[in-house]
């Protein structure tokens, strides 16, 4: 793929942008916030293309691109003294599922329609999941994108987003709980 890019293969550029732009945007939004994330990602793409001939292949192209956007976003944060909270805009939904001793008072049943096979034919459920995902704060979205969709380890996420391991685990769990609860409400209706 790298050789194709250097050789100027049009399809290679389209493929790389289609494949990695979303992940890069997710990382940038988590670090610098929504307002300038697009700009940071554009700058990262340009920096990557310029540095492409020097790319030594010691990591995958994806890892390299994510590192570029992460470094760019972090230096932007330092330069502009920006601060984005770990869970901007997130509020825990008060739980009515437990009694005062911490025992469940609801009846948790098995799901029938949330298997990957069923999902492929259930556009409504896909929409529910997309909406729940988009309702998450940027840090949670990025953590979920990297771990649950891109297969990153939590420790790698910590380095990319510059957060502690325990914070990354909390963000991941909260994101999953939100998506789980959205699917659960869909199943109950």
């Amino acid at each position, binding site marked *: 793929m790298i050789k194709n890019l250097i050789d100027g293969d049009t399809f290679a550029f389209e493929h790389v942008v289609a494949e990695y732009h979303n992940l890069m945007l997710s990382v940038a939004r988590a670090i610098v916030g929504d307002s300038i994330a697009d700009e940071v990602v554009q700058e990262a793409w340009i920096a990557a293309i310029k540095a492409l001939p020097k790319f030594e292949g010691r990591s995958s192209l994806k890892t390299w691109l994510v590192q570029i956007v992460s470094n760019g976003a972090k230096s932007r944060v330092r330069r502009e003294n920006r601060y984005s909270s770990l869970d901007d805009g997130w509020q825990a939904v008060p*739980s009515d599922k437990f009694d005062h001793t911490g*025992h469940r008072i609801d009846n948790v049943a098995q*799901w029938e329609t949330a298997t990957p096979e069923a999902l492929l034919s259930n556009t409504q459920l896909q929409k529910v999941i997309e909406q729940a995902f988009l309702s998450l704060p940027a840090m949670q979205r990025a953590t979920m994108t990297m771990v649950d969709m891109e297969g990153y380890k939590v420790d790698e996420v910590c380095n990319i987003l510059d957060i502690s391991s325990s914070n990354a685990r909390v963000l*991941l769990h909260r994101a*999953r709980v939100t998506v789980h609860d959205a699917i659960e409400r869909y199943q109950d209706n």
Partner: protein
Amino acid sequence: MLQCKDVTDETSNFIEGDLPLSKRIALFLHLVLCRCCRNYVQQFRQTINTVAVTQPQEMDTTDRQALARKLHAMCDKTNHGDS
């Protein structure tokens, strides 16, 4: 003895294998006794799998074809020592 609420709070760590052994055993014992929590952990695994399958995306208005063309043009310039 763990309560159902503790199981809910630790489900991700349990699934990822990130719990210390004593807590893992306590949670496992709770799951043996509590059908609701067993179903919850199962639902949670399904949630993770469904996210992996549906791959929800960031809200984004970028024209990716145009971006690819722009990068391609830039690369051409760099290759021809024109930049």
